[in-house]
């Protein structure tokens, strides 16, 4: 965190007009000389610096040296922090009494800002000595003290530096300025009021002047603060722009790089290809030539062989010679008839290669164009996205791409030919009592309605406001089992049908079922119900009667609660928010909450880590409330017993909250890890009843949790 507390000393250019400035002329100082040295000494203490109190933060004090008779404008320059050292030197010089005309010791002040506003100063009739900096020359030590404090407050660090320059001077006391002349804006001594210059002037006590000076300072501080904030905001903005420039550069760089690489790759590829082609050509030629060479060699060999044979023959006896000669003549004749090919089969020259660089050129040209987008990815077909004659296609694209339009094309993949002889199936029967829904989905199940197996089921839904005539019917096709979860829009009503399909075609529509996507809708699961509980026909009321055991107790199965007189609801397995309400009686002992499906049925609700619940016990006219999980509860007291409890199950934030609905009062919230789906659970520790309300949208006060 940064702290800004008026440490800034600099004023900006737009200081408003109510600043009072000392005018200090650094460079012309030598021209101004004391005309009346005696009076200088005496009046040294009548310092215009009293005005310092009026100045803004960090304003240096200084007396303008003036000619007694003249009224001259001077500039005051604010001290920068770096000037403090120089100030110190000045002080040491200044406080020596000076007689006569003296040079100004050069001021160590820097001219802060030439655009500063300037003010006329009218001094009292006397010349004040120049360069009484800081607090030297102040009136009483008390005033010194005040001013010191003012400065300490506004200057922070700077004022500490100033402090060491404060030199209270006792001899000043008898000449202390004790009133303030508003007209001349200078402190003066009371008796001076009767002097000519001040006779008609307005005079106020010095303390008042101090106060108003302080107020000025504070006002200006506030403005400074604002300025600081503005500049900071600007700096932040600049930072953002800076970052954006970097990002844009990054993108451009990437783009260029990839283009360039493409071109280089293409060129490299071409090179490879060409070289390889040339190589092959060479191989061809060489092989051809070699072949020729080989056959030449063979030819030669044959010739030589014949020659040798003939020579041998010539040395034979006459009879053998004649025999062989005839044979040889034949052979020779045949041999010489065969053509010898003395044409060279392969030319040594290679053809000129045509180098085709057109694609490289194309690439080069395209380097500045927007890159083609990447192929979109088609999402898998969602449920309720198809009808008999239409289908909804969704796709996603890469965020880096610039896309102007899409082109969608399709073709049928399979021609469905209806089975020739098979009859279409009968319509299924929706189990309306087991429909579970929430704001975003519905879980429907049905009976097949057919003895023979069917290939699949189709669920059709229309929005209830627009019945079949005009509304869109959405279908979910290809459902293999007798149950499906369909996504819906919140706050609507839907009519749902189911069809069965086989080779003979689709069945007619089933009887409709209606679903409202308001709140969450569930029924109690009779399979979990403890034998002592009775569930009403509509599945929303739980009663535990006075009789402790029913006449016939069926053998408990694993799914029933045995120890805890409880029952669970069947909540749709969809993450998100679910809200329901339970009407209770403040005299009943009850427990309401949620539990995982596999919560131990032999234990109490809330006694294990698989359930979270609120328990109310009414004993000795006192209401006890517990919020149980894993057997523990916080110590909690509720002064007004709720009559209707609202329960909010929030999967996203892992929270389970309980409310007093009538008072819109929040009671308690569990943080719970919900790695699987949970279901509402209810139990009655003593005879009584609970009535469940669901299909309610969340009340406003609940949405805060």
């Amino acid at each position, binding site marked *: 965190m940064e702290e800004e507390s008026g440490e800034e000393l600099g004023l900006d250019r737009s200081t408003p007009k109510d600043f009072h400035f000392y005018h200090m002329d650094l460079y012309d100082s030598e021209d101004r000389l004391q005309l009346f040295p005696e009076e200088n000494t005496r009046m040294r203490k009548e310092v215009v610096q009293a005005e310092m109190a009026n100045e803004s933060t960090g304003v240096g004090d200084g007396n303008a040296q003036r000619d007694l008779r003249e009224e001259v404008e001077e500039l005051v320059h604010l001290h920068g922090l770096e000037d403090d050292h120089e100030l110190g030197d000045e002080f040491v010089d200044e406080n020596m009494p000076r007689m006569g005309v003296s040079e100004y010791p050069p001021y160590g002040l820097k001219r802060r800002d030439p655009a500063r506003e300037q003010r006329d100063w009218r001094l009292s009739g006397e010349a004040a000595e120049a360069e009484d900096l800081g607090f030297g020359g102040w009136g009483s030590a008390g005033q010194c003290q005040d001013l010191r404090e003012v400065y300490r407050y506004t200057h922070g660090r700077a004022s500490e530096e100033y402090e060491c320059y404060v030199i209270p001077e006792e001899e000043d006391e008898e000449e202390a300025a004790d009133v303030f002349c508003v007209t001349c804006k200078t402190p003066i001594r009371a008796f001076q009021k009767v002097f000519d210059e001040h006779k008609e002037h307005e005079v106020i006590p010095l303390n008042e002047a101090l106060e108003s000076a302080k107020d000025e300072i504070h006002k200006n501080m506030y403005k400074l603060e604002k300025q600081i904030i503005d500049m900071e905001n600007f700096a932040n903005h600049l930072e953002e722009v800076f970052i954006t420039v970097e990002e844009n550069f990054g993108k451009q760089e990437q783009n260029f790089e990839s283009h360039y690489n493409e071109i280089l790759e293409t060129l490299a590829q071409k090179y490879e290809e060409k070289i390889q082609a040339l190589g092959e050509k060479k191989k061809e030629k060489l092989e051809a030539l070699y072949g020729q060479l080989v056959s030449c060699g063979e030819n030669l060999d044959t010739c030589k062989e014949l020659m040798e044979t003939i020579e041998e023959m010539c040395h034979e006896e006459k009879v053998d010679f004649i025999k062989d000669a005839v044979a040889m003549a034949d052979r020779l004749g045949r041999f010489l008839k065969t053509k010898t090919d003395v044409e060279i089969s392969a030319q040594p020259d290679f053809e000129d290669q045509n180098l085709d660089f057109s694609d490289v050129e194309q690439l080069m040209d395209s380097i500045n164009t927007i890159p083609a987008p990447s192929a979109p990815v088609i999402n898998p077909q969602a449920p309720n996205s198809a009808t008999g004659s239409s289908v909804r296609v969704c796709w996603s694209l890469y965020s880096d791409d610039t896309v102007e339009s899409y082109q969608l094309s399709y073709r049928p993949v399979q021609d469905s030919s209806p089975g020739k002889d098979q009859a279409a199936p009968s319509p299924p029967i929706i189990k309306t009592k087991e429909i579970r829904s929430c704001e975003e989905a519905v879980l429907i199940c049905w009976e097949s309605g057919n003895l023979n197996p069917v290939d699949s089921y189709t669920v059709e839904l229309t929005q209830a406001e627009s019945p079949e005539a005009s509304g869109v019917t959405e279908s979910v096709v290809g459902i293999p089992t007798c149950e499906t979860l369909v996504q819906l829009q919140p706050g609507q009503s839907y009519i749902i049908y189911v069809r069965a399909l086989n080779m003979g075609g689709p069945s007619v529509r089933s009887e409709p079922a209606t679903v409202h996507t308001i709140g969450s809708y569930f029924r109690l699961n009779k399979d979990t119900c403890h034998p002592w509980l009775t569930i009403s026909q509509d599945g929303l009321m739980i009663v535990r009667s006075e009789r402790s055991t029913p006449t016939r107790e069926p053998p408990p199965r694993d799914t029933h609660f045995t120890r805890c007189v409880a029952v669970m609801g069947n909540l749709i397995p969809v993450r998100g928010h679910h809200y329901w309400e339970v009407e209770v009686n403040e005299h009943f002992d009850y427990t309401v909450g949620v539990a995982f499906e596999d919560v131990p049925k032999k234990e109490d609700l809330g006694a294990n880590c698989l359930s979270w619940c609120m328990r109310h016990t009414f004993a000795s006219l006192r209401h006890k409330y517990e919020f149980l999980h894993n057997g523990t509860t916080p110590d909690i*007291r509720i002064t007004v017993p709720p009559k209707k409890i609202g329960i909010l199950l929030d999967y996203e934030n892992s929270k389970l909250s309980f409310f007093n609905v009538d008072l819109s009062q929040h009671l308690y919230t569990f943080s719970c890890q919900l790695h699987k789906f949970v279901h509402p659970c209810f139990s009655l520790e003593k005879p009584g009843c609970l009535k469940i309300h669901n299909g309610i949208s969340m009340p406003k006060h609940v949405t805060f949790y």
Partner: protein
Amino acid sequence: MALKQISSSKCSGELQKVFEHVSVELNCKMKFAVYLPPKAETGKCPELYWLSGLICTEQNFISKSGYHQAASEHGLFVIAPDTSPRGCNVKGEDESWDFSTGAGFYADATEDPWKTNYRVYSYVTEELPQLINANFPVDPQRTSIFGHSMGGHGVLICALKNPGKYKSVSAFASICNPVLCPWGKKAFSGYLGKDQSKWKAYNATHLVKSYPGSQLDILIDQEKDDQFLLDEELLPDDFIAACTERKIPVVFLLQEVLARIS
């Protein structure tokens, strides 16, 4: 009334500021801290007053509680005033840590020498809200209040004496029945005099009994092992019992661990 900004700190996008002004009720300069969430730049925010406990100033809550993130998330404008007038030079004001300076008990004193300056109740319920509503982007229709210890009691009496003014009321480890605990007795006899019937006007447990009963929603959070609870300074049971009888909705949560902010 002029507001002087004393300090301003930025903390992840929001502003924590401290202001000073001259209080009419308390006749002295008073400081208070305000927290402006990012939402304050664009619209009016609900306002939430925090009342601190004994010996605290406007600084304790803003530096130690770490509330900024939650306030930013929910866009809450949080105001934390000081616990008593300061620098009034009343004789005896610095003698004890649990009376006068830093221990205004959110009451309007009627006894000398306190009655000129120690009017913290009026300050917190009237002067300060007027100042805040006039100078900051807040929605006075959505005001709530919460506090700790002595401030928790302050919260309860402000809510009970001003039905319908606060949307929610939350008290942490609060004093609930001061007329019966040592702190309360000391404070009330000093500020309100010896006549105990006058103390009822600033005692939460009494006020509940005669509460006209417009909608209230009170949460009290208390640490089990709190020494002050064990020393019977806080006495929440009395308050709970009175609320149960009068059917004032309160949720009282006794927790294992709760940090003390002071």
